């Protein structure tokens, strides 16, 4: 039996203490835990370390492990004209390449994440992992930042916007959250 301090086990079960759990084995998770992408539903699954390794690309590749590396692209992969031609309604978007080489573009909005239906054949994406990595573009307020990020970071951004967006323009709180998200991203990025 384990050597846990007295009450530690029971205290995890107190009301309001509901900890995040691994969706594959039920183990309790710390706030920093790996994510898997469920490929069929493009859904993020919280996992413990062992499951994230065990289920990565297993069972006809149902899940793919999402990494943690963030890269800042010093050279923008799009020219301004190329970006304009994509007609993304806000200055934020992320691009994913699926395992079968299909390119998808999504942009976050107050209602969640919208997939751009415009043709994307002309888009050339930088080198990145299929499905689990995304090119994240931030062109709001005169910024021109491009990152290769784990896909869960994009969903995190979508969640932030959904939670804090008010009215047409978003409001101060939403933009503050977006700014904080990108400064944290820059800090964690390698060149």
């Amino acid at each position, binding site marked *: *039996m*384990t*050597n*846990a*301090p*007295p*009450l*530690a*086990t*029971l*205290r995890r*079960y*107190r*009301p309001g203490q*509901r900890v995040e759990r691994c969706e594959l*084995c*039920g*183990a*309790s998770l*710390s706030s920093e835990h790996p994510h898997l992408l469920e490929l069929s539903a493009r859904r993020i699954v919280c996992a*413990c*370390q*062992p499951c994230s390794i065990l289920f990565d690309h297993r069972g006809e590749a149902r899940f793919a492990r999402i990494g943690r590396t963030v890269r800042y692209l010093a050279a923008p992969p799009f020219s301004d004209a190329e970006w304009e031609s994509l007609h993304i309604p806000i200055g934020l978007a992320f691009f994913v390449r699926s395992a079968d080489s299909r390119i998808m573009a999504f942009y976050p909005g107050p209602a969640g994440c919208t997939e751009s239906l415009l043709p994307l054949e002309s888009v050339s994406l930088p080198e990145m992992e299929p499905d689990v990595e995304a090119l994240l573009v931030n062109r709001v307020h005169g910024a021109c930042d491009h990152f290769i990020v784990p896909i869960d970071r994009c969903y995190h951004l979508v969640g932030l916007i959904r939670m804090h967006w008010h009215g047409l323009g978003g409001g101060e709180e939403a933009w503050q959250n977006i700014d904080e998200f990108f400064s944290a991203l820059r800090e964690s990025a390698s060149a």
Partner: protein
Amino acid sequence: MQRIQRIEGLIQQIESSADPGTVASVRELVEALLEYHGAGLGRILELAGEGTTREFARDPLIASMLLLYDLHPDDLETRVRRTVDGLPGVLLISVLDGVVRLRSTSAHTVREAVERALYEAAPEIVAVEIEGVPASSFVPLEALQRAV
């Protein structure tokens, strides 16, 4: 503490061996029971008033229940200070964000004994650091679960 050890032993056994569905049901059952008893205990303390609550807290059995539900009338630092004062060979440096820092003043300080006494008085402690005593073999359950 023997009663708690028994309950926690059973929970750990189920968590580590049962199938995920059973573990989830057991989790809900234990949470519901704790919620029920915690709410009742909170109400009892409200009606009993502060003086009686302090009297309750002096009883080791009731004190352990109050600690389980975060209902103990003394805050973390008070409980840590009282425990450290009762232990020979250690001085309290600080209690910060749940981390208790101590300095050993004796060559005979046994880390396990100090930790056990502290966790018993303050289960919400995140870590105990003792200057001058080698690292612990005391592994939090969470760390074990991650490592399995």
